[in-house]
C-alpha cells in the first residue's frame, strides 16, 4: 500500500499550477515513476495534482511552420508509433520505442519521461545520500557499475534515465512550461541540472511549474537521425550507454551539421561537442568514424566499477555511425 496523500484532478492548467503551489505538492502524469518513488519512500508527498483531465496536453499536432507539438501527456507509445515522428524525427521514435516495456510505454507520458527521478540504487534504496539531502554519496566508493562517466563534478554520479531526452536535444526540441507567470519556452538542452548546480534536483522546474508541451522545429532537409541504446536486457532496462545522433548531410554525403547526445553516461543527457566537431565537414569514412568514437570517450572519468562503459560507448558509436547512410 502506498503512503497516504491527498489527491486532486484540476480542469485547467491555471488551477493545476495553483494546486501545485500548496506545500509538498507534486504533478501526477502517468504515475509510472512517481508511484514507484512513493512506494519506496524516496520522497513523500502531501498532495498529488493529477493532470489527467487536461485533455489539451494530449496529442501530437503539426505547427504552422512545419514543426511538431507534442502535448506533455502524450504517451510514450503514441510518440513511438506516430508516423510523422518516425519519418521526420526518427531518433525520437526509436528512443520512445526503447523505453521500459510495452505496458509502461502505454502508461508513461513524454512529459513524465523528462521529469523522472534517477535510478541510482542508493538513491532508490534506503540510503540518505546527497541527492536526498544527506551528507555523502554512497556510489563514489561503493557499487558503481551503472553510474556515470561524465559530469559528476565529483559530487553525484547518477546517469540521467531518460531515453527520449537525448533524442529531443539532438533534434533541437524545446519544452513549454506553465507556471505562476506566463508560459516560457526553454530548449530541452537547458532543462536539466548538473550536480554542481544543484545536487537535489534534476530539472529547472519550480515546484508549481508544469511541462505543457514539447516543440520540435521543422526537420531540416537531408536530416537523418537515430537513437541507439545498449542495455543488459531487451526490455525494462535503462541504457548502459546510448546515443542520439542527428546529422545533416549535403548532396555529396558530407556531414554539414551534427548533434550528438549521449545517454546512460552522465547526470544529464550529455552533448558531445568533440564528436560533433570531428564529424562536421566530413564524409563518414571508417577513419572519421574511428576518430569520432575516440573523441566521445576522451574525457571520461570512470569509477571503480564502470570502466566497461568506455569501450562500450566507443564501440557502440562506431557501429552506429557505420550504420548511417
Amino acid at each position, binding site marked *: 500500500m502506498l503512503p497516504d496523500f491527498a489527491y486532486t484532478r484540476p480542469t485547467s492548467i491555471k488551477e493545476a499550477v495553483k494546486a501545485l503551489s500548496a506545500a509538498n505538492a507534486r504533478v501526477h502524469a502517468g504515475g509510472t515513476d512517481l508511484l514507484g518513488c512513493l512506494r519506496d519512500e524516496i520522497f513523500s508527498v502531501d498532495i498529488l495534482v493529477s493532470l489527467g483531465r487536461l485533455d489539451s496536453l494530449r496529442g501530437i499536432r503539426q505547427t504552422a511552420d512545419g514543426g511538431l507539438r507534442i502535448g506533455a501527456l502524450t504517451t510514450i507509445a503514441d510518440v513511438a508509433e506516430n508516423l510523422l515522428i518516425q519519418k521526420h524525427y526518427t531518433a525520437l521514435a526509436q528512443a520512445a520505442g526503447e523505453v521500459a516495456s*510495452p505496458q509502461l510505454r*502505454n502508461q508513461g507520458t513524454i512529459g513524465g519521461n523528462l521529469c523522472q527521478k534517477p535510478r541510482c540504487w542508493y538513491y532508490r534504496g534506503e540510503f540518505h545520500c546527497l541527492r536526498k539531502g544527506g551528507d555523502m554519496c554512497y556510489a563514489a566508493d561503493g557499487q558503481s557499475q551503472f553510474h556515470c562517466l561524465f559530469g559528476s563534478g565529483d559530487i553525484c554520479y547518477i546517469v540521467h534515465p531518460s531515453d527520449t531526452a537525448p533524442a529531443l536535444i539532438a533534434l533541437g526540441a524545446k519544452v513549454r512550461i506553465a507556471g505562476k507567470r506566463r508560459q516560457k519556452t526553454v530548449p530541452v538542452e537547458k532543462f536539466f541540472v548538473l550536480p554542481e548546480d544543484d545536487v537535489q534536483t534534476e530539472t529547472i522546474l519550480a515546484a508549481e511549474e508544469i511541462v505543457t508541451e514539447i516543440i520540435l522545429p521543422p526537420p531540416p532537409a537531408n536530416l537523418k537521425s537515430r537513437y541507439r541504446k545498449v542495455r543488459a536486457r531487451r526490455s525494462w532496462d535503462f541504457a548502459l550507454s546510448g546515443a542520439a545522433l542527428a546529422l545533416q548531410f549535403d548532396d555529396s554525403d558530407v556531414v554539414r551539421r551534427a548533434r550528438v547526445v549521449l545517454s546512460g553516461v552522465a547526470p544529464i543527457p550529455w552533448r558531445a561537442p568533440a564528436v560533433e566537431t570531428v564529424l562536421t565537414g566530413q564524409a563518414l569514412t571508417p577513419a572519421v568514424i574511428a576518430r569520432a568514437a575516440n573523441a566521445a570517450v576522451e574525457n571520461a572519468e570512470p569509477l571503480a566499477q564502470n570502466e566497461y562503459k568506455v569501450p562500450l560507448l566507443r564501440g557502440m558509436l562506431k557501429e552506429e555511425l557505420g550504420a548511417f547512410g
Partner: protein
Amino acid sequence: MADEHETNDRKGVTRRQFMTRVGVGAVAATVVGGPPAGRAEAAQVMRPGEMAKITLWINTRRHRLLVAPRWSLLYVIRERLGLTATKVGCERGECGACTVLVDDRPIYACMLLAVEAENKKITTLEGLMQGEQIGPVQDAFIQHDAFQCGYCTCGQIMAAEGLLRKNPRPADEAIPLAVSGNLCRCGAYPQIFKAVRAAADKRGDQ
C-alpha cells in the same frame, strides 16, 4: 476460482464480492455497458484516507465504489471486487503479473491509481470469458502448454489480448515484443509465442 467468476458473470455478485462491497459500503454493480464519452467529474480535493465514490467500468460492468486516493487499481480489482485473475507480483512495474487492459491497451494495474482509472474501459482476464467458456487466447495458452507454474499467465494473456485488439494480424516479430513486459520465470516463452500465434491465426480465420 473459475466457478466464482462464472457465478459473477451470471448473477452479478459473488459471495466474496458481496462481503467486500458491504465492507466498503459500495453500491452493487447494476449497469452493463461502457463509460460514457466526455464525462467530467467535479474538481475536488480528496484528503488523505478520505474515501470518494467513483465509477469504474470493468469488463463492461459499471461499479460504483468508494476508494481512497492511494489505492491502486490492482488493489481495488482484487481486494475490493474479488477479481483475482489479475496477480500481484513486484508492485513496481517490473514483472507484468498485474497486466490489465485500459481502453484496450495493456498497462500495469499496480502502477495506476484507481482514481485515475475513473470512467475508463478496464478489461481483466475475467472479461475474456465468453459466458462459461474460456476465450480464444486463453484456449490457445492451454492448447500450447504456454505455462508451467502459471503465475505470469493471466498477465501474458492480457498482453497478448492487447496486441490482438490493436493488431489482429500481427507479424511474428510483434509477438515477443508484445509480451516483453511480462516476465515468465519458468521460461515458457517459446510456448507463449506459439499460443499467441495460434490465437491470432484463429481470429484471422473467423
